[in-house]
Every structure is written in C-alpha cells, then in structure tokens.
C-alpha cells in the first residue's frame, strides 16, 4: 500500500485532479481534437481546393451538400475547441499576474465561441437553403 507521506490528502490523491483542478482533461482533449484535426483538416483543404475559382452557385451547392456540411461543422467544432485549449496554454505561459491572466483566458474563450458560432451559423444557413 502507498504510504501517505506527502502533504496531499487521501481524497485529493484519489480524485487525482492536481493543482489545475481538472486533472489531465485539458491535455487529453487537446490530443483528441488534434487527432480529429488531422483528418478534418485534410478534408477541409480538399473542400477549399474544390471551391477555388468556382462561381457562387456551385460553391453554395458544394457547401450545402449534407456530407460536406457535416464535415465542415465537425472541423469548425474540433478546431475551435483545440485552438481554445492551445491558446490558453500560451496565455498561461506568458501572463502571470492573476487578473490579466483571467481576463485573457476569458477573452480566449469568447473568441473561440464567437468564431465557432459565426462559422456554424454560416454553414447551416447555406445548408438549409441560403
């Protein structure tokens, strides 16, 4: 049996959440979205290539194809979660004063949600008939 010689309480050890209070959740979600991003990014690049130089009508037709639209939505979702987590790490690396850090981390969340919401709205509007 492990002896509890550290300052941590048995409850803290069992919960395993550490000083960040969320355990490995942040790290793991960043990896899961990174794996998803590899697949979805390649599809996204393919869609953009297919759209180069297309007139409006055929661009809309492609983006409103259900399969394309669903994959675009997944890309937006995965990328926005991933970039929010990534930028939070960067903020925490460079901004140490508590209040500016909280503001920056909060602003980062707002940014990711705003970009995601605008993109999702646009794809859905195109899909459901402009």
């Amino acid at each position: 049996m492990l002896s509890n010689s550290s300052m941590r309480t048995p409850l803290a050890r069992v919960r395993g959440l550490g000083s960040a209070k969320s355990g490995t959740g942040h790290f793991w979600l960043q990896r899961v979205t990174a794996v998803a991003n590899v697949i979805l990014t390649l599809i996204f690049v393919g869609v953009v290539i297919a759209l180069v130089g297309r007139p409006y009508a055929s661009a809309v037709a492609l983006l409103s194809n259900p399969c394309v639209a669903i994959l675009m939505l997944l890309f937006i979702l995965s990328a926005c979660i991933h970039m929010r987590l990534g930028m939070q790490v960067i903020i925490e690396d460079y901004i140490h004063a508590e209040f500016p850090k909280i503001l920056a981390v909060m602003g980062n969340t707002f940014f990711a949600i705003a970009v995601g919401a605008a993109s999702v709205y646009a794809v859905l509007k195109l899909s459901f008939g402009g």
Partner: protein
Amino acid sequence: MAEVKPAARPLSPHLQIYRWSWTMAMSIAHRVTGTGLYLGTILIAAWLVAAASGPAAFETAQAIAGSFLGRLVLFLYSFSLIHHMVGGLRHFVWDLGHGYDPQTRMNMAKFSIAVSAPLTVLIWIVALVLR
C-alpha cells in the same frame, strides 16, 4: 562558510548565449503556426459568412482572396496549417513514449519541415491546376 565555486558550464536557459537548433526552431514554429491559425480563423469565418450572405458578398470575398495580398495570406495560412499538422504528428510520437533520444528528435524536426514545405507547394499546384 562554503565557498561558492563558479559553474564550469553555461547556466541554462541563457538568453544571450545560445545556438539555434532544429528542435528549438520547430518547437517555436509549432507555437507560432498555432497562433497564426488561431487568428486566421477570423478569415475563415468571414469567408463562410460572406458565402451565407449572398452572391454580392461572396464575390467580394473571392476577389479579396484572389488578390495578390489575399493569395499571400492564403499561402502562409496553408503552410502554417500543414506545418502545424506535421509538427503535431511529432507530438503524437512523443505522447506514445517514443522519439526522445537526440538523434530521433533531430531527425523528426528536420522531417517536419522537409515534409510540410513540399506538401504545401504540392497542394497549391493541385489547386491551381484544378481551377
């Protein structure tokens, strides 16, 4: 009192005295490209919203994207995306517990730029041929 002996080797990190290495450059590149991709999502969102707003807005967005500056930004964005993606694969190798020895680290760092640069050019060739 104990005598303080000067260290025989440079203390790390030492911001004035360092030598650029591939691993260091690629580590920084991953963060820089991640930040670039982050900011660039504004442009992706704007382009999608333009498409959803109707033909006039879409034509404007396409004209901006097709201009010299627009294409330059698109090229940098696509390179950042591919480079960050290939760099991310390196992280997967580390996460699985491999590739920590100096030689492998160095090879993977060189590999990431050796793959991402030609791959980006290839994507552009395909895009320009297809249009």
